[in-house]
Protein backbone atom coordinates (compact mmCIF):
# COMPACT_ATOMS: atom_id res chain seq x y z
CA UNK A 1 0.00 0.00 0.00
CA UNK A 2 2.80 2.41 0.84
CA UNK A 3 4.70 1.39 -2.27
CA UNK A 4 4.18 4.29 -4.72
CA UNK A 5 4.20 1.89 -7.67
CA UNK A 6 1.27 0.02 -6.18
CA UNK A 7 -0.74 3.24 -5.84
CA UNK A 8 -0.26 3.98 -9.54
CA UNK A 9 -1.45 0.51 -10.59
CA UNK A 10 -4.67 0.42 -8.57
CA UNK A 11 -7.11 3.31 -8.71
CA UNK A 12 -9.66 1.78 -6.36
CA UNK A 13 -10.25 3.25 -2.93
CA UNK A 14 -9.21 1.16 0.09
CA UNK A 15 -12.87 0.53 1.03
CA UNK A 16 -13.67 -0.46 -2.56
CA UNK A 17 -10.75 -2.87 -2.55
CA UNK A 18 -11.86 -4.36 0.77
CA UNK A 19 -15.43 -4.92 -0.45
CA UNK A 20 -14.15 -6.38 -3.71
CA UNK A 21 -17.44 -5.86 -5.55
CA UNK A 22 -16.19 -3.78 -8.51
CA UNK A 23 -18.27 -1.50 -10.72
CA UNK A 24 -21.13 -3.99 -11.14
CA UNK A 25 -21.65 -3.96 -7.33
CA UNK A 26 -22.12 -7.71 -7.16
CA UNK A 27 -18.53 -8.96 -7.46
CA UNK A 28 -18.16 -12.59 -8.49
CA UNK A 29 -21.55 -13.54 -6.99
CA UNK A 30 -23.30 -14.36 -10.27
CA UNK A 31 -20.39 -16.40 -11.63
CA UNK A 32 -19.88 -18.25 -8.36
CA UNK A 33 -23.51 -19.22 -7.69
CA UNK A 34 -23.95 -20.30 -11.30
CA UNK A 35 -21.08 -22.75 -10.74
CA UNK A 36 -22.30 -23.91 -7.31
CA UNK A 37 -25.81 -24.63 -8.63
CA UNK A 38 -24.28 -26.25 -11.75
CA UNK A 39 -22.31 -28.72 -9.60
CA UNK A 40 -25.39 -29.53 -7.48
CA UNK A 41 -27.45 -30.12 -10.64
CA UNK A 42 -24.72 -32.19 -12.31
CA UNK A 43 -24.60 -34.46 -9.25
CA UNK A 44 -28.39 -34.81 -9.07
CA UNK A 45 -29.27 -35.20 -12.79
CA UNK A 46 -28.32 -38.93 -13.02
CA UNK A 47 -30.53 -39.66 -9.99
CA UNK A 48 -33.37 -37.50 -11.38
CA UNK A 49 -33.31 -39.10 -14.84
CA UNK A 50 -33.13 -42.60 -13.31
CA UNK A 51 -36.06 -41.86 -10.99
CA UNK A 52 -38.21 -40.33 -13.75
CA UNK A 53 -37.49 -43.18 -16.17
CA UNK A 54 -38.43 -45.69 -13.44
CA UNK A 55 -41.87 -44.01 -13.26
CA UNK A 56 -42.75 -45.00 -16.83
CA UNK A 57 -45.69 -47.36 -16.66
CA UNK A 58 -46.02 -46.93 -12.87
CA UNK A 59 -49.35 -45.94 -11.33
CA UNK A 60 -49.96 -42.75 -9.30
CA UNK A 61 -49.66 -44.51 -5.95
CA UNK A 62 -46.20 -45.86 -6.80
CA UNK A 63 -45.01 -42.46 -8.05
CA UNK A 64 -46.28 -40.73 -4.90
CA UNK A 65 -44.85 -43.37 -2.55
CA UNK A 66 -41.45 -43.22 -4.29
CA UNK A 67 -41.29 -39.42 -4.22
CA UNK A 68 -42.44 -39.44 -0.57
CA UNK A 69 -39.36 -41.39 0.54
CA UNK A 70 -37.13 -39.00 2.53
CA UNK A 71 -34.07 -39.13 0.24
CA UNK A 72 -36.19 -38.70 -2.88
CA UNK A 73 -38.22 -35.83 -1.37
CA UNK A 74 -35.09 -34.04 -0.12
CA UNK A 75 -33.25 -34.74 -3.39
CA UNK A 76 -36.16 -33.39 -5.45
CA UNK A 77 -36.41 -30.29 -3.23
CA UNK A 78 -32.66 -29.64 -3.59
CA UNK A 79 -32.90 -30.21 -7.34
CA UNK A 80 -35.86 -27.81 -7.71
CA UNK A 81 -34.12 -25.02 -5.76
CA UNK A 82 -30.81 -25.43 -7.64
CA UNK A 83 -32.66 -25.76 -10.97
CA UNK A 84 -34.73 -22.56 -10.70
CA UNK A 85 -31.79 -20.65 -9.23
CA UNK A 86 -29.54 -21.78 -12.10
CA UNK A 87 -32.34 -20.96 -14.59
CA UNK A 88 -32.69 -17.44 -13.14
CA UNK A 89 -28.93 -16.80 -13.39
CA UNK A 90 -28.77 -18.13 -16.97
CA UNK A 91 -31.77 -16.30 -18.41
CA UNK A 92 -30.67 -13.13 -16.61
CA UNK A 93 -27.57 -13.07 -18.84
CA UNK A 94 -29.63 -13.82 -21.97
CA UNK A 95 -31.82 -10.79 -21.17
CA UNK A 96 -28.74 -8.65 -20.45
CA UNK A 97 -27.25 -9.68 -23.80
CA UNK A 98 -30.23 -9.25 -26.11
CA UNK A 99 -32.67 -6.74 -24.58
CA UNK A 100 -31.27 -3.29 -25.19
CA UNK A 101 -34.29 -1.21 -24.15
CA UNK A 102 -33.69 -0.43 -20.50
CA UNK A 103 -37.38 -0.41 -19.48
CA UNK A 104 -38.03 -3.80 -21.11
CA UNK A 105 -34.86 -5.21 -19.62
CA UNK A 106 -35.88 -4.21 -16.08
CA UNK A 107 -39.44 -5.54 -16.61
CA UNK A 108 -38.14 -8.87 -17.96
CA UNK A 109 -35.60 -9.24 -15.13
CA UNK A 110 -38.43 -8.66 -12.62
CA UNK A 111 -40.68 -11.21 -14.36
CA UNK A 112 -37.82 -13.70 -14.56
CA UNK A 113 -37.12 -13.44 -10.83
CA UNK A 114 -40.81 -13.77 -9.96
CA UNK A 115 -41.35 -16.71 -12.33
CA UNK A 116 -38.31 -18.65 -11.10
CA UNK A 117 -39.16 -17.99 -7.44
CA UNK A 118 -42.74 -19.12 -8.14
CA UNK A 119 -41.49 -22.25 -9.94
CA UNK A 120 -39.25 -23.18 -7.02
CA UNK A 121 -41.95 -22.48 -4.41
CA UNK A 122 -44.59 -24.42 -6.36
CA UNK A 123 -42.20 -27.38 -6.66
CA UNK A 124 -41.43 -27.29 -2.92
CA UNK A 125 -45.15 -27.08 -2.13
CA UNK A 126 -45.88 -30.07 -4.38
CA UNK A 127 -43.02 -32.11 -2.92
CA UNK A 128 -44.14 -31.31 0.65
CA UNK A 129 -47.73 -32.28 -0.20
CA UNK A 130 -46.56 -35.57 -1.72
CA UNK A 131 -44.23 -36.31 1.18
CA UNK A 132 -46.64 -35.45 4.00
CA UNK A 133 -50.16 -35.88 2.63
CA UNK A 134 -50.18 -38.21 -0.35
Amino acid at each position, binding site marked *: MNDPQNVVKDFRTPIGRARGLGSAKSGTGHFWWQRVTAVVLALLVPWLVGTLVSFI*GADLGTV*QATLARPYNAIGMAAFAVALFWHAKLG*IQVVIEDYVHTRAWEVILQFLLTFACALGALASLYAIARIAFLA
Partner: protein
Amino acid sequence: MANRERPLSPHLQVYRWQITMTMSILHRATGIALVVGAFALAWWLLAVAAGGEAYASAAACLASPLGKIVLFGFSLSLVYHLLNGIRHLLWDAGWGFEIPEVYRSGYTVFGLTVVLTALIWFFALRGGA
Protein backbone atom coordinates in the same frame (compact mmCIF):
# COMPACT_ATOMS: atom_id res chain seq x y z
CA MET B 1 -24.04 6.82 -31.81
CA ALA B 2 -21.94 9.24 -33.81
CA ASN B 3 -21.23 6.99 -36.78
CA ARG B 4 -23.96 4.47 -37.62
CA GLU B 5 -21.93 2.99 -40.48
CA ARG B 6 -19.23 1.54 -38.25
CA PRO B 7 -19.14 -2.27 -38.10
CA LEU B 8 -20.66 -3.72 -34.96
CA SER B 9 -19.33 -6.76 -33.15
CA PRO B 10 -20.05 -9.66 -33.31
CA HIS B 11 -20.45 -10.22 -37.04
CA LEU B 12 -21.09 -13.93 -36.73
CA GLN B 13 -21.53 -14.48 -40.47
CA VAL B 14 -17.97 -13.39 -41.36
CA TYR B 15 -16.37 -16.20 -39.37
CA ARG B 16 -15.54 -19.59 -40.80
CA TRP B 17 -17.71 -22.21 -39.07
CA GLN B 18 -16.12 -23.75 -35.99
CA ILE B 19 -17.41 -26.43 -33.64
CA THR B 20 -16.68 -24.10 -30.70
CA MET B 21 -19.18 -21.43 -31.81
CA THR B 22 -21.84 -24.06 -32.48
CA MET B 23 -21.40 -25.59 -29.03
CA SER B 24 -21.54 -22.19 -27.36
CA ILE B 25 -24.79 -21.31 -29.17
CA LEU B 26 -26.25 -24.75 -28.42
CA HIS B 27 -25.34 -24.40 -24.74
CA ARG B 28 -27.46 -21.25 -24.52
CA ALA B 29 -30.26 -22.66 -26.68
CA THR B 30 -30.52 -25.88 -24.66
CA GLY B 31 -30.36 -23.82 -21.45
CA ILE B 32 -33.38 -21.79 -22.58
CA ALA B 33 -35.21 -24.99 -23.55
CA LEU B 34 -34.43 -26.49 -20.14
CA VAL B 35 -35.99 -23.50 -18.35
CA VAL B 36 -39.24 -24.53 -20.06
CA GLY B 37 -38.43 -28.05 -18.87
CA ALA B 38 -38.02 -26.75 -15.30
CA PHE B 39 -41.55 -25.35 -15.35
CA ALA B 40 -42.78 -28.60 -16.90
CA LEU B 41 -41.19 -30.48 -13.98
CA ALA B 42 -42.92 -28.15 -11.48
CA TRP B 43 -46.24 -28.67 -13.33
CA TRP B 44 -45.75 -32.46 -13.21
CA LEU B 45 -44.88 -32.40 -9.47
CA LEU B 46 -48.07 -30.38 -8.80
CA ALA B 47 -50.07 -32.93 -10.80
CA VAL B 48 -48.56 -35.81 -8.79
CA ALA B 49 -49.40 -33.95 -5.56
CA ALA B 50 -52.96 -33.25 -6.69
CA GLY B 51 -53.50 -36.81 -7.95
CA GLY B 52 -56.84 -37.86 -9.47
CA GLU B 53 -57.83 -36.25 -12.76
CA ALA B 54 -55.01 -33.68 -12.67
CA TYR B 55 -52.44 -36.49 -12.70
CA ALA B 56 -54.36 -38.55 -15.25
CA SER B 57 -54.48 -35.66 -17.74
CA ALA B 58 -50.81 -34.78 -17.11
CA ALA B 59 -49.75 -38.40 -17.64
CA ALA B 60 -51.85 -38.62 -20.82
CA CYS B 61 -50.31 -35.38 -22.06
CA LEU B 62 -46.75 -36.68 -21.49
CA ALA B 63 -47.55 -40.07 -23.05
CA SER B 64 -49.05 -38.53 -26.22
CA PRO B 65 -46.88 -38.44 -29.38
CA LEU B 66 -46.33 -34.67 -29.00
CA GLY B 67 -45.53 -35.16 -25.30
CA LYS B 68 -42.95 -37.80 -26.16
CA ILE B 69 -41.32 -35.54 -28.76
CA VAL B 70 -41.11 -32.70 -26.23
CA LEU B 71 -39.71 -35.07 -23.58
CA PHE B 72 -37.14 -36.29 -26.10
CA GLY B 73 -36.16 -32.66 -26.73
CA PHE B 74 -35.83 -32.03 -22.99
CA SER B 75 -33.71 -35.17 -22.47
CA LEU B 76 -31.43 -34.32 -25.41
CA SER B 77 -31.06 -30.73 -24.16
CA LEU B 78 -30.44 -31.90 -20.60
CA VAL B 79 -27.70 -34.37 -21.57
CA TYR B 80 -26.01 -31.85 -23.87
CA HIS B 81 -26.21 -28.98 -21.37
CA LEU B 82 -24.93 -31.25 -18.57
CA LEU B 83 -21.96 -32.57 -20.55
CA ASN B 84 -21.03 -29.20 -22.06
CA GLY B 85 -21.53 -27.66 -18.61
CA ILE B 86 -18.97 -30.10 -17.21
CA ARG B 87 -16.68 -28.98 -20.08
CA HIS B 88 -17.21 -25.38 -18.93
CA LEU B 89 -16.46 -26.31 -15.31
CA LEU B 90 -13.22 -27.99 -16.40
CA TRP B 91 -12.27 -24.78 -18.26
CA ASP B 92 -13.08 -22.85 -15.07
CA ALA B 93 -10.63 -25.13 -13.27
CA GLY B 94 -8.03 -24.21 -15.89
CA TRP B 95 -8.06 -27.50 -17.79
CA GLY B 96 -8.25 -28.07 -21.56
CA PHE B 97 -7.61 -24.59 -22.96
CA GLU B 98 -5.32 -25.70 -25.82
CA ILE B 99 -7.18 -25.53 -29.14
CA PRO B 100 -6.77 -29.27 -29.99
CA GLU B 101 -8.10 -30.09 -26.49
CA VAL B 102 -11.05 -27.72 -26.94
CA TYR B 103 -11.95 -29.49 -30.20
CA ARG B 104 -11.45 -32.95 -28.71
CA SER B 105 -13.65 -32.18 -25.68
CA GLY B 106 -16.24 -30.66 -28.02
CA TYR B 107 -16.52 -33.78 -30.18
CA THR B 108 -16.51 -35.92 -27.02
CA VAL B 109 -19.52 -33.95 -25.72
CA PHE B 110 -21.36 -34.41 -29.03
CA GLY B 111 -20.63 -38.15 -29.08
CA LEU B 112 -21.55 -38.76 -25.45
CA THR B 113 -24.75 -36.70 -25.86
CA VAL B 114 -25.96 -39.08 -28.58
CA VAL B 115 -24.92 -42.19 -26.62
CA LEU B 116 -26.42 -41.13 -23.26
CA THR B 117 -29.66 -39.83 -24.78
CA ALA B 118 -30.04 -43.10 -26.71
CA LEU B 119 -29.37 -45.01 -23.47
CA ILE B 120 -32.06 -43.03 -21.58
CA TRP B 121 -34.60 -43.75 -24.32
CA PHE B 122 -33.61 -47.39 -24.54
CA PHE B 123 -34.54 -47.78 -20.88
CA ALA B 124 -37.56 -45.47 -21.19
CA LEU B 125 -39.08 -47.38 -24.11
CA ARG B 126 -38.21 -50.75 -22.59
CA GLY B 127 -39.75 -49.75 -19.25
CA GLY B 128 -43.17 -48.84 -20.57
CA ALA B 129 -44.83 -46.74 -23.30
